[in-house]
């Protein structure tokens, strides 16, 4: 009889989650939408849709388009606003035993500060994930995430406003992601998560118009996984804080790639659309792998990549 391998990981700021698998922001609503389809308590954590100070209507449709092994989205950060979130969405989530991570977004430093402040006071939020990497909004978003200086600044502001662990979510649309990662670490981030979507575009060749109402959107799904794995590999070797891997994970095998290169935890995004049970299947797939490889603790797996010389 084998004992179950340990899967708990510390994802920064002393937040320990029971397994490394979270659901990614924007792909899991506010949790409730999926609650009849899987046991939320079996997730490592749940990241809610990006929250802004005021409700946002989002971009004009069509907002999604399918591409080879991927999809584009240009939702434009439609959300109910942080106050409505706290009043109407959070109470439902408090009924579960799963860490809730609030993904936050602002057009200005002040907005980031205010949103972080509200969530800090709310209770029932376990960490903040600072989105400085959305390719689909005109202001804020990637505007902060493209340069080390602005990225560091946002991080400092949020850090200064909250006692919660601060995760900063990085964009792949940069020449050197390690520079941004180092900057936000300096700014006080407890962890970094990557990658957000890659800016992309698709065309309706019959109508000769963009497939998205917003012209461009963000590419997610299996297509981007190799890019995400490479970036995680670059970042884990230059920062001290935990790295959360995101991008195209649809199976335990995919998740293992990230863990092996050194990610402490993962987020599952687009895969939730293909199979609402994806995240929980990935949890058990990782457990099976650990058992099969006689690893008693996931810590033995994380960062265990060997480079044959």
């Amino acid at each position, binding site marked *: 009889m084998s004992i179950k391998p340990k899967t708990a990981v510390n994802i920064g700021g002393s937040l320990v989650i029971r397994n490394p698998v979270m659901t990614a922001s*924007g*792909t*899991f*609503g506010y949790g409730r*939408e*999926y609650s*009849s*389809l899987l046991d939320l308590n079996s997730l490592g954590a749940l990241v809610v*849709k990006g929250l802004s100070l005021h*409700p946002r*209507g*989002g971009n*004009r*449709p*069509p*907002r*999604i*388009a*399918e591409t*080879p*092994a*991927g*999809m584009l*989205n240009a*939702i434009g950060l*439609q959300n109910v606003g942080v106050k409505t979130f706290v009043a109407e969405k959070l109470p439902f989530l408090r009924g579960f035993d799963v860490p809730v991570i609030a993904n936050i977004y602002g057009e200005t430093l002040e907005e980031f500060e205010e949103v972080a402040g509200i969530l800090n006071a709310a209770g029932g939020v376990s960490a903040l994930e600072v989105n400085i990497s959305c390719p689909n909004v005109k202001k804020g978003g990637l505007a902060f995430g493209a340069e080390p200086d602005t990225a560091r600044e946002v991080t400092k502001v949020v850090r200064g406003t909250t006692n919660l662990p601060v995760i900063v979510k990085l964009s792949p649309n940069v020449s050197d992601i390690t520079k941004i990662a180092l900057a936000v670490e300096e700014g006080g981030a407890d962890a970094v998560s990557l990658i957000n979507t890659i800016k992309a575009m698709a065309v309706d060749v019959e109508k000769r118009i963009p497939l998205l109402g917003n012209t461009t959107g963000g590419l997610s*799904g*299996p297509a981007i996984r190799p890019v995400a794995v490479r970036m995680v590999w670059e970042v884990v070797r230059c920062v001290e804080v935990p790295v959360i891997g995101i991008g195209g994970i*649809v199976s335990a095998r995919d998740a293992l790639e990230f863990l092996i290169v050194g990610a402490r935890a993962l987020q599952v995004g*687009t895969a*939730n*659309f*293909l*199979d*609402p*049970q994806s995240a929980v299947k990935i949890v058990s797939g990782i457990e099976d792998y650990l058992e099969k490889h006689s690893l008693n603790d996931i810590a033995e797996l994380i960062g265990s990549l060997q480079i044959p010389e």
Partner: protein
Amino acid sequence: MQNSGKIIFNRELAGKHYHLRLILEEPFLKPRPGQFFLIRLNDRLDPLLGRPFSVYDCHHQGRILDFVYRVVGRGTGLFSKLKKGGELSLLGPLGRPFNIFPEAKTLVLIGGGMGAAALNYLLKEYTKGPAGARSICYYLGAKTAGEIIGKAVIERRCQVMLTTDDGSKGRRGLITDLLEEDLESLAAQGAVFYACGPRGMLRRLFELISPYKVSCQVSLEERMACGLGACLGCAVEARGEDDLYRRVCCDGPVFEIGEIVW
């Protein structure tokens, strides 16, 4: 709501239209007219997403589901090659169904092209009891005679008004033109309206019907990812106090025609 369906048949009907019958392998819910399923090809990351299809008919309380679809792109093209015994992943029944008015004396169904699919199941539900004093008129429009689906079944259940764009069957022209002629009298009878079809048809219907105070439910189509209201991908612009978008997958696909910005 997550299920696996085994293909009982996948028959070609006229003009790139197929009739797919599935038997569900897991516990299931009976779908209501207007609801849909997201159906995904197994073992593939390309195409990636499920395709939404309205329930065309169902049997054995929803254990056996019928869909009618038209080949329009890569996904439906691959669907058309599926064979008996194949398996598909399903999520559903999803979405807000048609509101049923058991007391309604006059029903008007307006279907354009593939619209027939959702209206077929609605019609079945409305006609499963004794007919009573209810009259049902089905305004059915198609591009051409070969693209009219299920006419025989419909005719058994109600009165059919037909147009084709090319005049190859029924009257030549748009179905909304035909409806326009009868609209005033139908509205006066307190008819309840249901419509599915291309956006252009629905927009025209909106123009025609707005002057009347009648209930007109329409079923909309928008690209979808989650089908559950989580991704906000299927937004349509809606009228209303807050001016936000509505999600076709869960606020719809059935809307009162007046809720939508056309």
